[in-house]
């Protein structure tokens, strides 16, 4: 089980800020594919991965990163702080 978090328009498209996901995925990309297969709202949120960023356990990473042992995976658009 991994805690999956969504922010900004990724959160708005999926409709919830977080959920616990029971996954067999080895990488972030596989987790995304599992989510996309669930429901159209996930498919819509992840339709263009070039505009989505990912963090594992609160550290920025990429879609090929392994998620074994991860407690928290977060998806969001490029950050716009400052």
């Amino acid at each position, binding site marked *: 089980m991994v805690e999956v*978090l969504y*922010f*900004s*328009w990724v*959160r708005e498209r999926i409709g919830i800020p977080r959920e616990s996901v029971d996954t067999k995925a080895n990488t972030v990309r596989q987790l995304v594919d599992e989510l996309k297969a669930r429901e159209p709202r996930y498919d819509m949120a992840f339709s263009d991965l070039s505009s989505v960023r990912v*963090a594992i356990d*609160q*550290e*920025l990473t990429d879609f090929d990163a392994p998620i074994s042992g991860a407690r*928290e995976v*977060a998806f*969001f*658009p*490029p*950050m*716009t*702080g*400052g």
Partner: protein
Amino acid sequence: MPVRIQSNLFDIGAEIEAFQSGRTDAGAMVSFCGIVRQSEDAPLSRMLIEHYAGMTEKSIRKIELEARAKWSLVDCLIIHRFGELEPGDPIMMVATLAEHRSDAFQAAEFLMDYLKSRAPFWKKEFRTGGESWVASKESDEAALERWSE
């Protein structure tokens, strides 16, 4: 090295004064303040800033440590707001104290460049025409490259 993430309004002048006053060990202070900018074409009624609470302070402290490793700093201060903001409100500020001005300037610019695209904040603007998330700029990503020599 104070880092504060808060929804409350802050007073730029008072923060700068408190940061510097009584110190005699720094010859240069640089501050940057980001402000909610109004636009005549598409009036902004408010701004909403979302952040990733668990990751925000951690990522900012990492950026701050990098700045302290690259330049000789006496101290630095970072404040970033989240939640509801109005036009004219300060969004965030960075201040650096150093013996010499070039360290203070460069560290402040570096902190700003990284806070822009590496700290987990997202801005949403509410205008007369509708609401929309602020898009990241290619120029902000490009700005990071100058620090990687």
